[in-house]
């Protein structure tokens, strides 16, 4: 029963590598992005095969779905630019091809010489699961054992939105396409469902695959639907709320990490009795921040006071 699945894995691996090549070589830029999305979904499938459903969910929602949306909206803005400004000299291409082939060979050689069954940290995680406050090992690692990394990851997201707002000052962007009535009807139908699914993913993360990042990404889709259907338009007056949304996750996460310290406890050392509550609180706030930030990254520029002609339809 193992052989057909291995064959499937091999085909999937080949397809993924081929898609990667296709992303770089296809001429049309729209096709390039679509191929990338297919590539991302195939990678997520491969990670399911490697028994990593959490990672697959995150890659499908964030790494592929939202990244794809970001790429498409950027393509929409720069579509006037020439596709390939300057051709690269053939010699450079060949030299780099050789270099990368060499790197592939070296890395593959090192990989093949490494036994894959190193014990890793799995036993240590299993041993401390009871003290972590949650039942799902990946969530325990993200929100408890390596919570400091996760806090800094939220900081990276905060840095990204600060930088994006700073970069895109006063840009008047290409008008978004009008999507029509059927789309609006669909988004009204889908919005509540997405909210439920996102919240469910957040909640279930304590015990099963899911969690703040996947849930936040799904909720960010709400923002995308609203922005695309012009059901919500960012106004300059909303900026304080947006800023509050961006920093909420970081602030609560850092605040909890510091406040639990004291009385002989260290930062990030949640009291055992309240660990689950505190982790859920952090996850909830981080989810909101992630959703707001990702939607704002999709929108791009900071909503600024713009000339009246721009505001009215």
């Amino acid at each position, binding site marked *: 029963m193992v052989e057909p699945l291995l064959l499937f894995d091999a085909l999937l691996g080949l397809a993924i590598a081929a898609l990667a090549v296709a992303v770089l070589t296809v001429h049309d830029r729209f096709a390039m992005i679509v191929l990338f999305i297919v590539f991302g979904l195939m990678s997520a499938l491969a990670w399911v095969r490697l028994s990593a459903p959490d990672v697959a969910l995150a890659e499908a929602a964030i790494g592929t779905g939202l990244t794809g949306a970001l790429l498409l909206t950027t393509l929409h803005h720069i579509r006037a630019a020439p596709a390939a400004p300057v051709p690269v000299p053939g010699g450079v291409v060949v030299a780099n091809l050789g270099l990368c082939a060499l790197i592939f060979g070296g890395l593959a050689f090192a990989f093949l010489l490494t036994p894959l069954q190193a014990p890793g940290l799995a036993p240590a995680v299993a041993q401390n699961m009871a003290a972590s406050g949650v039942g799902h090992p990946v969530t325990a690692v993200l929100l408890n054992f390596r919570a400091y990394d996760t806090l800094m990851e939220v900081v990276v997201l905060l840095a990204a939105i600060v930088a994006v707002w700073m970069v895109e000052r006063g840009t008047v962007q290409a008008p978004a*396409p009008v*999507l*029509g009535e*059927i*789309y609006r009807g*669909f988004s009204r*139908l*889908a919005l509540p*469902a997405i909210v439920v699914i996102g919240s469910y993913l957040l909640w279930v993360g304590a015990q099963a695959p899911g969690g703040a990042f996947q849930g936040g990404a799904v909720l960010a889709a709400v923002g995308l639907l609203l922005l695309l259907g012009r059901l919500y338009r960012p106004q300059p007056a909303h900026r304080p709320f947006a800023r509050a949304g961006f920093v909420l996750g970081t602030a609560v996460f850092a605040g909890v990490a510091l406040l639990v310290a004291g009385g002989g406890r260290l930062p990030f050392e949640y009291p055992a009795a309240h660990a689950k509550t505190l982790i859920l609180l952090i996850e909830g706030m981080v989810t909101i921040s992630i959703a707001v930030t990702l939607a704002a990254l999709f929108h791009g520029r900071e909503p600024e006071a713009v000339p009246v002609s721009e505001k009215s339809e």
Partner: protein
Amino acid sequence: MLLDLLALALIAVGAFFFVAGTIGLLRFPDTLCRLHALTKADGLGLGLTCLGVALLAGTAGEVVRIVLIWFFVATSSAVCGHLIARHVRRAANAGGR
């Protein structure tokens, strides 16, 4: 055992329709024809696959989730098809003028 075989058959037929839709996508001449092949065949393939998987599901909760997945994928692909077709028509109108 019989149920398993039936589920397997349904999924296999579903997969066949997906493949057929994909071939249509690759072979048909223009966007509207491709859309025609894709949405119809994939809709059928999706339904059959979901039915097959639902037969294998262990609990009622799982069946409900599969039905929900079917519903949302079906509606969103229909809306996507509509949006693409709409875009094509507008582009054609804009080009024709």
